[in-house]
């Protein structure tokens, strides 16, 4: 299960998607909108995605995880639109017969998701708004050329 959802993420549903009788361990990552970021008090947050590509990138990541940790199953739900403070914006569940693999695959998926999946977060704070991102976070092609140079 890979989903981009408007409205609250149903945590139990994400977990149910990876449950099976041989899965002794499930590791779940829940990413929540924080009230502070880099010293700013955050008022609200909005997420936007390049949906078709986000889905295909997430599928690619899940396949990569299943290749590296063959007994794992993974499900990912990411919320789009406005996300009230304190509510989950992303949930990743990974089940496995053994916990080491579930931990490793879950960590891999959230790290890669944040690096390469085209989903953007806009933070609204007292006195302004900002798109959150980092150049390092986006895969830079080797032939990268600064357009202004």
């Amino acid at each position, binding site marked *: 299960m890979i989903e981009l959802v408007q409205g609250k993420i149903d945590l139990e549903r994400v977990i149910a998607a990876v449950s099976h009788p041989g899965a002794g361990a499930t590791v779940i990552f829940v990413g929540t909108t924080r009230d502070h970021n*880099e010293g700013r008090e955050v008022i609200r947050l909005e*997420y*936007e*995605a*390049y949906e*078709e*590509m986000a889905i*295909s990138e997430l599928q690619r990541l899940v396949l990569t995880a299943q290749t590296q940790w063959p007994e794992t199953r993974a499900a990912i739900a990411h919320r789009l639109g406005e996300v009230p403070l304190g509510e989950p914006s992303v949930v990743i569940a990974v089940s496995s017969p053994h916990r080491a693999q579930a931990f490793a695959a879950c960590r891999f998926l959230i790290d890669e*998701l*944040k*690096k*390469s*999946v*085209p*989903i*953007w*977060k*806009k933070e609204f704070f007292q006195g302004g708004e*900002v*798109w*959150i*991102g*980092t*150049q*390092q*976070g*986006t*895969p*830079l*092609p*080797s*032939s*990268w*050329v*600064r*357009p*202004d140079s």
Partner: protein
Amino acid sequence: MRVLVRYFAAARERSGTTEEWIEVEESATLAGLWSLLVQRHPALAGLGSCISFAVNREYTDRLHTLRDGDEVALIPPVSGGSTGGCIHD
């Protein structure tokens, strides 16, 4: 030939549109397309060092040669990290 350009997040706000078809020359590269886009939407220039590109939903580099009907997306930095390292106005 023409390509569909899709704008997201900061790029969407600076261009003022979500997508548009752009005429490009045969064998145009992404770098060539980018020059056209900056002429068309000067506010995009400030994002230059921060933007990545996807063609047909795959990340690629600016030397990539476009084909008729390609879907090109401007990908500002994604939401994972801090704003450190990305210089724009």
